[in-house]
């Protein structure tokens, strides 16, 4: 849009705004809804009474020298289930409360946490990173030396490819935290591996890189050099501070857009080779079994995906009534590129309208989307309960499949990389339930 046009648009928008505001206030005076909310006589105690915090000293600035959330936010936490409890919660996952997520950044304390041998606590003074194999010069770096490389800062989500993987055969979790919260997003700071390889010299026969953690399980994964030379990073910073132990303190790999499992935490070693490694977590697990009996190995990217976060089973519409205007909000993301568009359906994916992208739209990042909606009687449209389904498209051309389309190729035993559209059903009372729209 050019400047002239955009100025005109602004003028119209502002005029429009005053007109609408006037209309709303007339409605408010004439209608009964506001009066009904007014407390008879005494007024709202939250306004009329003195507050505890308003009449005496608060904490000195010396308290909580590392800040912590308000005590009232104690329910905004990572959660787990027994289903995901393997290894006495040491080969397990705790998932992010994405129903409470704001914007496209997850606070470090809420970032989903997955480990294969428990959270390691690494002494940064004893931290070493070794890079060897098919390089002209192998090296070992201390943490300080690693941080001397020119840094880059990027906002990327990390998603466990098993996000939604418990629901291939039908919905299981009446919760967006568990149905889609095997992911989180942060601003990461580190160094491109290709920058370090400028020093070391990669030999032309190198095809694969092993990334290995120093934790109890020595978590390892094989990564093709194409990605290493594109945007793979070694990171030490997360949202402006050091990585948390649960995210691999002091150093993890970040493979933007790809399976979270490839982003090896507590990273200690990178080795280059002509042949791949067949690590435990790229053979026994993190492989997608198809109905042909063949399994996809090295299934790298988390494909285009989206979800409605508000409403959700956790944040229903039970406080809303017919005529209320509400924002439907959600997340879209793709490990294969940048979100181009999000469509929203009110009938479970039969018909779609375009939703609006909102805020920063970055590559391989969470992207917010929004749609303004007026609540209909009994939460019904055309006599049927609302079925909210979102569908994202990325700039590589990928569009989320229907469940039938995806399982038509992948079957229901793949475990990982499920990205078919997902649906919330809104009941007559405004409650929100997780359902799926599928033929079998």
């Amino acid at each position, binding site marked *: 849009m050019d400047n002239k046009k955009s100025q005109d648009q602004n003028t119209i928008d502002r005029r429009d705004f005053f007109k609408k505001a006037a209309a709303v206030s007339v409605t408010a005076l004439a209608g009964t809804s506001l009066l009904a909310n007014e407390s008879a006589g005494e007024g709202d105690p939250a306004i009329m009474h003195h507050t505890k915090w308003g009449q005496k000293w608060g904490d000195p600035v010396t308290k909580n020298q590392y800040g912590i959330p308000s005590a009232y936010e104690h329910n905004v936490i990572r*959660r787990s289930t027994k289903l995901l409890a393997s290894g006495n919660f040491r080969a397990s996952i705790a998932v992010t409360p994405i129903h409470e997520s704001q914007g496209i950044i997850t606070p470090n304390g809420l970032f989903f946490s997955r480990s294969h041998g428990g959270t390691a606590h690494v002494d940064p003074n004893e931290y070493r990173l070794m890079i060897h194999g098919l390089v002209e010069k192998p090296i070992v770096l201390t943490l300080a030396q690693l941080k001397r490389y020119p840094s880059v800062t990027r906002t990327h989500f990390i998603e466990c490819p098993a996000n939604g993987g418990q629901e291939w055969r039908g919905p299981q979790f009446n919760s967006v935290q568990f149905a889609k919260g095997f992911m989180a997003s942060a601003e990461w700071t580190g160094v491109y591996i290709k920058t370090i390889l400028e020093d070391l010299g*990669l030999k032309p026969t190198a095809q694969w890189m092993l990334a290995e953690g120093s934790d109890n399980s020595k978590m390892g994964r094989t990564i093709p050099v194409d990605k290493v030379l594109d945007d793979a990073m070694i990171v030490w910073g997360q949202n402006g501070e050091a990585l948390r132990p649960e995210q691999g303190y002091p150093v993890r790999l970040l493979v933007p857009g790809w399976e979270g499992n490839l982003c090896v935490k507590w990273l200690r070693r990178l080795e280059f080779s002509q042949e791949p490694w067949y690590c435990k977590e790229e053979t026994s697990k993190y492989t997608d079994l198809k109905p042909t009996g063949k399994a996809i190995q090295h299934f790298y990217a988390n494909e285009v995906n989206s979800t409605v976060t508000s409403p959700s089973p956790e944040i229903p519409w039970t406080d809303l009534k017919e005529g209320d205007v509400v924002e439907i909000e959600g997340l879209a993301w793709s490990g294969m590129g940048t979100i181009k568009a999000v469509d929203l359906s009110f009938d479970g994916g039969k018909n779609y309208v375009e939703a609006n992208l909102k805020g920063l739209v970055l590559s391989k990042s969470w992207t917010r989307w929004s749609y303004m909606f007026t609540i209909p009687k009994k939460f019904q449209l055309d006599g049927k309960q609302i079925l909210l389904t979102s569908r994202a498209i990325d700039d590589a051309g990928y569009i989320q499949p229907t469940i039938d389309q995806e399982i038509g190729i992948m079957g229901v035993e793949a475990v990982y990389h499920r990205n078919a559209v997902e649906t919330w059903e809104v009941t007559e009372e405004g409650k929100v339930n997780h359902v799926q729209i599928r033929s079998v």
Partner: protein
Amino acid sequence: MFKLEAYNKLLISTSVAAVVAFSVVGCMGDSTEPSGSTTSVSLDIDGGVSYPVVNNKTSDYYVNPQAIGAKINNGRVPNAAELAKWDTDLQPATPLSPEGHGIPEGSGSVEDGETLYEAQCVMCHGDFGSGGGGYPALSKGNAVDLQKTLTNNRWKDPEADGPTRVFGSYWPQATTMWWYIRDGMPHPFSDSLSIDETYALTAYILNINEMYVDGEEVDDEYVLNRAKFLKIKMPNVDGFEPVISGANVLGGVKAYFGKASNFGGRNLNQGAEHCMKDCQEPTAKIKRIQNGGIKDFIPAMNVTRDLPKKEVVAIDVKKTYTESCAMCHSAFLSPGSGDWAGYTPKGIDKVYANGINGTESGMPAKGGADLSDADFKTMVDYLISGKVK
């Protein structure tokens, strides 16, 4: 040697191809079968786009062009002992690499493996590797037979048998097992088994999967060593796609992920439609959560904003004394002094009250400590009696 400049040029040229391809993106009508389409725009090995640096920017991010191609020379070259200590990974024998990598000399018997298993593994992995307690099964029976279950799919019949994915039936390489036992097992105290012990446990796991090595049954008398290990062929070695072993395979991997139908994807550049009306299969219906679903969330789901319930935690009397009382009460009225009655003839309740509220003679309210009244009384009792209740 790898040249970054050349690599960036390559990326830019492919991105131009992408722009051309994107210009034809649009609704392509009904597309029930995207496979076979060749209008792929996959630019990266994963089937997605990449963002090469153009005019000092990559996607929305500025880059410092001085940092590209800069020689920095941080760190030092590791010595042989350091490399040997950490380079403990295994790679299987392949046509390109007939000896594999990192497979050490050593040996171990099924018999020793069973003894070790019973001592260190069975509590998690169950009898004969049957699994349980949240730890994976290592065997479900005959590996060759179970490999045939991999085509099982509970798509239409939820009561049908699913595929059995255990070491014998599913894993493509035995090096994975050997390496993981050596580096990652036993889970609570890993990296503690010797090379021979690792061979013994591997032999035992081959045994309970009823496997053969080079035509020989891995029976109870079997002894595994490096030479035999190199000859293990897992039943499902060819069960994976795309091909990742061999020289110059990355092009094939890229081609595989360049075709959306290989992995259940839908791509507008490969015949998928951006459908806005009548998009759902006519047979599709609402499937709801069965039997309540999974809801044993830890902790339970809760979106209220209230104060957490205070847990009743016993106060650490001696620590609190040292931190909050000792500065004054080691000199007088120290723990066990017992003579408080002389100061407060009005009784113990007055002692408590004075302490809680503070006194003009110098006692700060609760000694300045952040304590409940009950905890403060506990501290007073300690000072009087000298005993921790």
